[in-house]
């Protein structure tokens, strides 16, 4: 039980200016399930891609079963007995299960023999691990849970002794996830070693033996699961960030400005991502939505903003209904007083190739202030951008520079200035300070509170719990697409952490 299956020593990896893995050392014991937890962008997937030979580390060593291995491509990883189930399945959609399993392990140039062997082997794996799947089914016709099973079978077919699963439950429904956990338990019982990557605390507690926590490219601790708690892991994940608490007085809520009733949203695969959510935001208050990333907050925001189509429910803006059938035009919502700071700054909030002044009118480019008939009023646009650059201290102070040349914090200020200065009734903000330097965070937080004090309704989504607690007057917690609890702005971190992990909900369900 105490043998080491995998040992990583001093792994470093940089992508340009991003230091994705900083000097990471890690031991995984044989025959255990080892969890790796961390927020999005903590470097978990990069580390596993290095172990699987998909990327090469800049420095560091990999030991498999105590021997040093050079793993520079997936072939070498497979040869070392490592298999990986990727977050986005690496399956060919229009191939059969059998074809997918054989790909890269066909035995011979002509398929006949290989097919026979694969069929027999698949039968055996099915028997040994209770992993049933029709070998002749076409992947795209299988539900996601079964597709994932094919990925696991693929690894086992190649003789994997060590199985890496990257965020395996992200695409699964709760019953499918439970089934996966049973399968992983069986694999462990058969002596396989499993590395399980997730950002969900509950899963770590449920199935792992040991857990390592990553934060901002560093490995900040390894614990025996039995000896740790959700609270400890949560604080390791988030860390104690130096957050200057912004001064804010009591809220003065007025009329309901934004009202969401029983909103349900499905993603392109038909999985329900927002499940029957209702909420109200009043003038003069900030409502924060807390939750671990991937629990439906992003889709909720995008649906309210008219970017996604809802499959059920209603949204009211200033008391009037909004068409959520996909015809709700974001431009129309803007005219009706809704401003939106999107989560995805680079692909949605800005055009990196545009001049700053051009990015600063995105979405408002049809407003008369910026136009002379059909022409852009370039003078007005640049003057306006320069005024905002001054007011928001955006650097470099040059409206004609390409947006890509600004730092993350300054880009975010460009978006924020654009949306706030339109004087909207309702402001919805996703991840206001993601990838933003500390100096800009305080500035952005102040602006959001000023909006509230000016009597605007603010709906805030953030995966940073500290941020939610610092800004919100009321906090809603989302888990698995649902709002699982509501607290006031003074709620404790532990209390919220339990809600975010879905634990509170389980307790309520059990009662």
């Amino acid at each position, binding site marked *: 039980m105490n043998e080491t299956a995998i040992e990583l020593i001093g792994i470093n990896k940089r992508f340009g200016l991003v230091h994705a893995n900083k000097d990471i050392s890690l031991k995984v014991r044989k025959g255990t399930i080892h969890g790796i937890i961390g927020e999005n962008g903590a470097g978990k997937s990069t580390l596993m891609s290095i172990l699987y030979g998909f990327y090469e580390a800049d420095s560091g060593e990999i030991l498999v079963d105590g021997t040093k291995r050079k793993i520079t491509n997936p072939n070498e990883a497979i040869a070392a007995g490592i298999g990986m189930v990727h977050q986005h399945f690496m399956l060919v959609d229009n191939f059969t299960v059998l074809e997918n399993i054989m790909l890269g392990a066909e035995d011979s140039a002509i398929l006949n023999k290989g097919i026979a062997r694969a069929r027999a082997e698949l039968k055996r794996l099915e028997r040994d691990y209770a992993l049933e799947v029709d070998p002749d089914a076409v992947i795209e016709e299988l539900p996601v849970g079964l597709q994932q099973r094919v990925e696991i079978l693929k690894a086992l077919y190649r003789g994997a002794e060590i199985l890496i699963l990257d965020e395996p439950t992200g695409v699964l429904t709760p019953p499918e996830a439970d089934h996966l956990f049973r399968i992983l338990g069986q694999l462990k019982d058969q002596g396989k070693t499993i590395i399980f990557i997730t950002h969900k605390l509950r899963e770590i507690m449920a199935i792992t033996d040991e857990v390592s926590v990553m934060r901002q490219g560093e490995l900040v601790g390894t614990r025996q699961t039995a000896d740790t708690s959700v609270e400890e892991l949560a604080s390791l994940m988030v860390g104690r960030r130096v957050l200057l608490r912004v001064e804010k007085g009591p809220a003065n809520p007025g009329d309901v400005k934004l009202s969401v009733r029983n909103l349900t949203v499905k993603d392109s695969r038909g999985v329900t991502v927002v499940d029957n959510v209702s909420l109200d935001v009043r003038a003069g208050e900030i409502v924060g939505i807390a939750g671990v990333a991937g629990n439906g907050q992003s889709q909720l925001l995008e649906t309210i903003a008219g970017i996604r189509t809802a499959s059920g429910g209603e949204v009211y803006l200033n008391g009037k209904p909004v068409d959520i059938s996909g015809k709700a035009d974001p*431009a129309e919502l803007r005219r009706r007083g809704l401003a939106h700071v999107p989560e995805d700054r680079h*692909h949605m909030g800005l055009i990196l*190739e545009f001049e700053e002044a051009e990015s600063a009118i995105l979405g408002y*480019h049809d407003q008369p202030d910026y136009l002379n008939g059909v022409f852009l009023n370039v003078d007005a646009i640049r003057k306006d951008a320069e005024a905002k650059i001054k007011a928001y201290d955006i650097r470099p102070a040059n409206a004609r520079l*390409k947006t890509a040349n600004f730092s993350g914090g300054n880009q975010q200020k460009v978006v924020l200035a654009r949306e706030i200065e339109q004087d909207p009734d309702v402001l919805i903000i996703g991840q206001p300070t993601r990838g933003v330097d500390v100096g800009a965070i305080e500035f952005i937080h102040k602006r959001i509170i000023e909006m509230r004090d000016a009597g605007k309704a603010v709906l805030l989504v953030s995966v940073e719990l500290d941020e939610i607690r610092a800004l919100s007057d009321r906090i809603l917690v989302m888990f698995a697409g649902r709002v699982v609890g509501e607290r006031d702005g003074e709620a404790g971190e532990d209390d919220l952490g339990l809600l975010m992990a879905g634990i509170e909900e389980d307790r309520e369900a059990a009662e």
Partner: protein
Amino acid sequence: MATPYAKLPGWVEYVLIPLINLIVAFAVAGLVVLLVGQSPIRAATLLVDGAFGYGEGIGYTLYYATTFIFTGLAVAVAFHCKLFNIGGEGQAYIGGIGVALACLTFDTILPWYLTFIVATIGAALFGAAWAFIPAYLRAKRGSHIVITTIMFNFIASSVMIYLLVEVMKPAGTMSPQTRTFGEGGQLPQLDWLMAIFGLDIGGAPFNVSFLLALAAAVFVWVLIWRTKLGYEIRTMGFSEKAARYAGIKDSRIIIIAMLISGALAGMMALNPIMGEQGRMQLDFVAGAGFVGIAVALMGRSHPAGIIPAAILFGMLYQGGAEISFEMPEISRDMIVIIQGLVILFAGALENTFRPAISRFFGARAAKTPPVSVGSAG
């Protein structure tokens, strides 16, 4: 495409790299000249002399350039919307119907400048109409616009053969062409313009449609960078997600961008039909639609780049004719090779020399890739 390249100074990005790509293309073309046992240097000298050495040569160079400005702008407008309109050839061909109809109707009753206006509108309408179906199918049904526009080139060719042989050919004549237009259907030379510079263009068909081409270039610049529509086209071209966020209707923008592209391609027909032949003949487009691709790639989809690129190709066409006269081994097909090489080196291999150039300028890696045009619609 997602490979991050180092950020380079503007003049390197927009002048040096295109220039290097161009020089490589010409160097390879020089090898072909060597292969047929001729002197590339003599060929180059003849080329430049033939194109710019005397008034009539310049006249012809600018006559060809006029055509390529139109087709280059057509490709560029679509590129800005991330659409690859490879159908300029067919749109220009069909645009000819508009020109011919206007001239056949009004050439004896209106002065040329009035016919010209009607013909311009006709050319634009017919060209745009030919772009409409591929555009509509792309916007509403997701059909691959590269393939549909290629198919429409061939369909246009069949349509025009049919029209010229069966419908528009005057009774009792043999060759598939319309009758020759009267004075009201022919554009005057721009000899006075060249005379200002002390040049005599002789018989060169350099005509007023050149001024229209320049106006079109200004129009495209204003459209793309100075109108709301252009803003929306560029937003669509850079990020469909951002366009959705900004409330821009994607199918509407795709269709409008393609209509403008088709109209510009169609206007190309004015130059050969009204400006040179005085009638519509079979195959008057002669590959100009495809040259437009090379011109747009070289000119980086900016009118300020397209005009010099069009003049360069005008020089190739005129100077190439001169070379083939002096060096019969090098026929005008040499231009086609150079055109292909320019498309290859300025288009498909545009990033080949970039890493070396970046190293030379010691630029640090930046996060954003350079603007890359036309990743197929």
